[in-house]
């Protein structure tokens, strides 16, 4: 079922996707002392509704801050010029954040699961690509906050025995997220061992 919803150009998962992805991934500027391999991005983008979700989240942090500054500017006569300047900064900065961050995130956030591993990219300015083999996965679950429910989204969280190995895939369609969890749970349960 993983393959069924795979619209990427690489076709079937695994290393078979190499030819399609190779041209997309350039080397680093620096030296390339060993190995002719590179890590390709995960195959699937997240749900486009995630942009609206992230935008809402950004507005929920920016608007109260702007409102607080505006109220202060209305009430405090003495500091009004300063507060209005601050308000302008908050409005412009926060607005830019609310516009740029979700779209940037949408281009970075990607995910993929295979029979052997979970692979996810996250972040926007700072970016992280995480891989965990399914043989080391301990728990798989979905998280749906109120905002995510509003947009029909869910996050999938995959934990391993490592305190720092948790993988979160944000902004999946909630039905798809349930399917991913079911599939991962079935695969991990079939693998023996204590996942350490």
């Amino acid at each position, binding site marked *: 079922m993983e393959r069924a919803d795979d619209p990427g150009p690489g076709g079937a998962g695994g290393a078979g996707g190499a030819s399609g*992805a190779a041209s997309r991934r350039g080397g680093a500027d620096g030296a*390339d002392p060993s190995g002719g391999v590179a890590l*390709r991005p995960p195959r*699937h983008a997240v749900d486009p509704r995630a942009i609206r979700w992230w935008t809402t989240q950004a507005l929920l942090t920016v608007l109260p801050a702007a409102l607080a500054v505006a109220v202060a500017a209305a009430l405090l006569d003495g500091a009004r010029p300063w507060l209005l300047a601050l308000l302008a900064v908050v409005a412009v900065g926060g607005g830019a954040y609310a516009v740029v961050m979700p779209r940037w995130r949408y281009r970075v956030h990607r995910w993929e699961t295979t029979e052997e591993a979970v692979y996810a990219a996250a972040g926007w300015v700072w970016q992280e690509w995480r891989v965990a083999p399914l043989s080391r996965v301990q728990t798989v679950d979905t998280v749906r906050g109120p905002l995510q429910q509003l947009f029909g989204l869910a996050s999938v969280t995959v934990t391993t025995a490592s305190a720092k190995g948790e993988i979160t895939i944000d902004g999946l369609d909630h039905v798809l997220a349930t399917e991913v969890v079911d599939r991962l749970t079935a695969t991990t*349960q079939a693998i023996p061992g204590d996942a350490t």
Partner: protein
Amino acid sequence: MSERRPSDGRLGGDGAAAPANGPAEPTGAPANGPAHSPHGPSAAAGREAWRGLAGRMVAVHGVRLAASLAPLAFALLIGGSDLNLSVAIALGAIFGGAALRSGADVVSWATTRYRVTPERVEMRSGLLQRSELSIPRDRVRTVNVTAKPLHRVFGLATVEVGTGRSGQSRLRLDAIGAGEAVLLRSELLARGEAAVAAPAGATMHDGAVPNATTPDAAPPGRAVAGRADAGEPLARIRWRWLPFHLLSPWTLALPLIVLGGALQALDSIGADGTIRDAASDGYDRAQQLPLGLTIAVLAGFALLVGVVAASAVFVESWWGYRLTREPGGTLHVRRGLLTSRSITIEQRRLRGVEVAESLPLRAAGGATLLAIVSGLKASDDGKGARVDALLPAAPRDVATAVAAAVLRGANRPPSAGTPARPSGAADLGTVQLLPHPRAALRRRLVRAAGATAALVAAAAIAGPIAGLLPQWAPLVAVALLAPALLLGRDAHRSLGHGLAGRHLVTRHGTFVRRTYALERDGVIGWTLSRSPLQRRAGLATLTATTAAGAGGYRIVDADDGEAVSFAAEAVPGVLAPFLVERAARGTSQRPGRRTSASTPATTR
């Protein structure tokens, strides 16, 4: 895994099945363990009788009660008979509280029963609020035997049996006889060693590996006679290592702690007025001396206090230190003067070692050695030494030699799904590490210059405003540029990573340079993270995640492409599905742009 289940029954009033089966099977047991044969009804349990705690604990509680009432008696002695009502009520409340606490302790002591069956370790306690705790023996990860000084006087020891998961599932026996404690620990450990010898044994499951933190109940020499002394010695205390121990920040911090403690003690007995007088008197006298002399005398005195206190801590922590490998392959660290402590690290739980060199220690050619162990939290033992310390601060040669010996012995069966692993262990004394690109050096130099600039700016702006700093403060800050750049270069020289046999080695840090040797089989995932500046410079920070120690070990600012190749080579298979042939360089660095080539996966 274990479960704690309150029950309102009387002793044994849980119904006929309860003493036999103990509390029900852990409900949350992971499905990956082989089937745990349901132990039979009363038959199996009948072999092991319930045992109580040592009777001598009454004496310990008595002494504790007396000790907690000592301040009270002191106050009564001083205050004499002129007690007013409110003071009498306060004293009565303190007395009542202490008595209640002791009473509760005694009730818990009197009602606690424990037993070890072939399958489980069980404990029940409580009079009204009864609780039962049952740990399958194959889930036992730690057996922790502590003997505080008071316990040692009465020949007692506290035993804690842990599953290595959450703090709630700890079975604590306070206290049983010291000899009994050693026997109990051996009993539980012996099972672990049997598991190592026969990992596929019918009743030995994935968790059957105790990794015990075990302060010995008796003086180190005779406590674990026979069993532990049969081990192969790897290291023992050398008192000439003391100077390395003194190179820690503790030596400077301890005088302040000692001073603070003394002031508080004097304050609590109402002598604060005297202190203030003495301080102002001392200040007046110091005014008549040259400033330099005063500073020198104070610093010298603080240093003296620090050296004495740190030496005392060293002796208390590391007295009788010995690192041995027991016949089962278990590492055994024994140390401690007043509270003797021994830490038993099962080799199968050992994922690697860390060699840490703080700047002063490195300058003196010393290093400390820590174990990277799953199930052993890297916590402080309360005396400045960490529970996972394998060595006190020692010469670097000794640390790397012991590290090599420890790593050589670490063998564990290959985990599920991993291919055959390379053999051989890392020798941190000789291992050659790949240096990181010049871009990493540039980053560090820029950071050093930036930090200096920030300091200069702060001194130039904040100094005159606050009026605290003299005019020449910015010049001093400027003079820091050269040392800062040197530190930056040193930080770059510290960077390195490589493979050595079964281990992945990574090193970073300048104030504390840390070298990690991590078992490649123990790596349970990878994280590749890139900041905007790292993307521009073609660098990336690669984190190997593991179940042990800190959970993740970083390869900082490696070449982006080389890091991926390294990860793929270090742990074959994990990254394989996501690797592509490297194309000619020069295309866009930004992962964000890469996505444009592939259609977004909309919802199915």
